[in-house]
């Protein structure tokens, strides 16, 4: 099972690939839309990449509740394995 740090690093890789976010900026308190300039269509791509990397599917109604990098980390931690 990946650690919280592993999940954060994996998520940072996805954010860099999909939205050009510098990995060092992908810290838990950052808001996807307000701080990292990730739009709603990119969030859909991120959800797909999270499923590929961590085996955790994020349904659309859950995706709307994920506002920050920390929210995403917690969701992945809670729902993996």
């Amino acid at each position, binding site marked *: 099972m990946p650690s919280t740090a592993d999940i954060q690093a994996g998520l940072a890789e996805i954010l860099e690939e*999909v*939205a*050009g976010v510098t990995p060092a900026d992908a810290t838990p308190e950052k808001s996807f839309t307000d701080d990292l300039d990730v739009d709603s*269509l*990119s969030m*859909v*791509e991120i959800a*797909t990449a999270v499923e590929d990397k961590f085996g955790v599917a994020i349904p659309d109604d859950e995706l709307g509740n994920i506002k920050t990098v920390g929210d995403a980390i917690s969701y992945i931690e809670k729902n993996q394995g």
Partner: protein
Amino acid sequence: MSTPVADVVVTGLGATTPLGGDVASTWDALLAGRSGVSRITDDWIKEYPAQLVARLATDPAEQIDRVRARRLDRSQQVAVIAAEEAWRDSGAADAGVPAERVAVVIGTGIGGALTLLGQDDVLEEKGPKRVSPFTIPMLMPNGPAAAVGLAIGAKGGVHAPVSACASGAEAIRWGLDLLRFDRADVVLVGGTEACVHPLPMAGFAAMRAMSTRNDEPERASRPFDKARDGFVLGEGAACIVLERADAAKARGARIHARLAGAGATADGYDLVAPHPEGEGAGRAITAAIRDAGLTTADIGHVNAHATSTPVGDTAEAAAIQSSLGDHVLVSATKSQTGHLLGAAGALESIFTILALREQIVPATANLENPDDDAAVQALDIVRHEPRRTTLTAAVNDSFGFGGHNIALVFTTA
């Protein structure tokens, strides 16, 4: 109408083409007689009768940021690259024109075909949930215009004419009208295409429209030549910035040339075959000259549509003959660039503008034995090397499947 028609000028040029990654390198390669055509070597091409293509000289990945590029279809990437060059060249960004008075008109013949077909592969292989959320904005035919509008911050209207291989020229005509009707102060116009993919290649090949001279790529596109056997598919984009002359002069802009008039007609003859005597094409040229307030004697040069298809070139020769006579110097630059479909009219308008600015007419490559057709024989087609001459006005004509004909008249600044 008593209101005088506004004078419209060209203040910016941009392009990325099979001959070069910008206008200067494209023009240099054109005058040097270089060809942008090569043979496809991918496995899928083996069963194809026509295996030639005019690929971009510069990979868009070298000119556009990776993250930005992945949300843009290739046809949108090249449109943005050409638009940003034209925008920089115009200096309009520093002129303080309000965004609400800046408009964009970018045409495409096919639209985001690579995205449509690529995402169809994803759908078939991985299912609907894996289709990219950017599929629709990347495939829609107004996508290039919208992407360019965002890139230059245009809020005065963004438009996307679609008329097959006349789309780029049609965009220029729309731009002229927008300025004449005072709908905007600056208009960025142009055309784009990037559809090198097995399906469009198979479709054009099924129409018997493409050259099968696979063993001689650089000699395959041979407009007006007796041995021509079809066009070579090209990719790229070209953009032009237009403004009213008084405003351009007031801000001290460099003026490349004047866009003096435009004419648009339809053949009303057949969905894809051109009228054999080029009736509608000739009317478009005549209308454009009248719109420019000129006479045929003023026109010194025509950059012809001339795609190298057997029927298209003779129809166009007849149109040039009937509308202009035989005194004009004709160039068929697709002999080197290939056929950029929706970008063709915009790229060839840039060549027409540069011919006027530099007073030199590009040569038509591969014209070894002009067709026996009487109208082709009567044309003064520039061959072997570019010809220095004195020009004051020139025509660029473009035609598209569907019977669309557009002619544009440019004059010296």
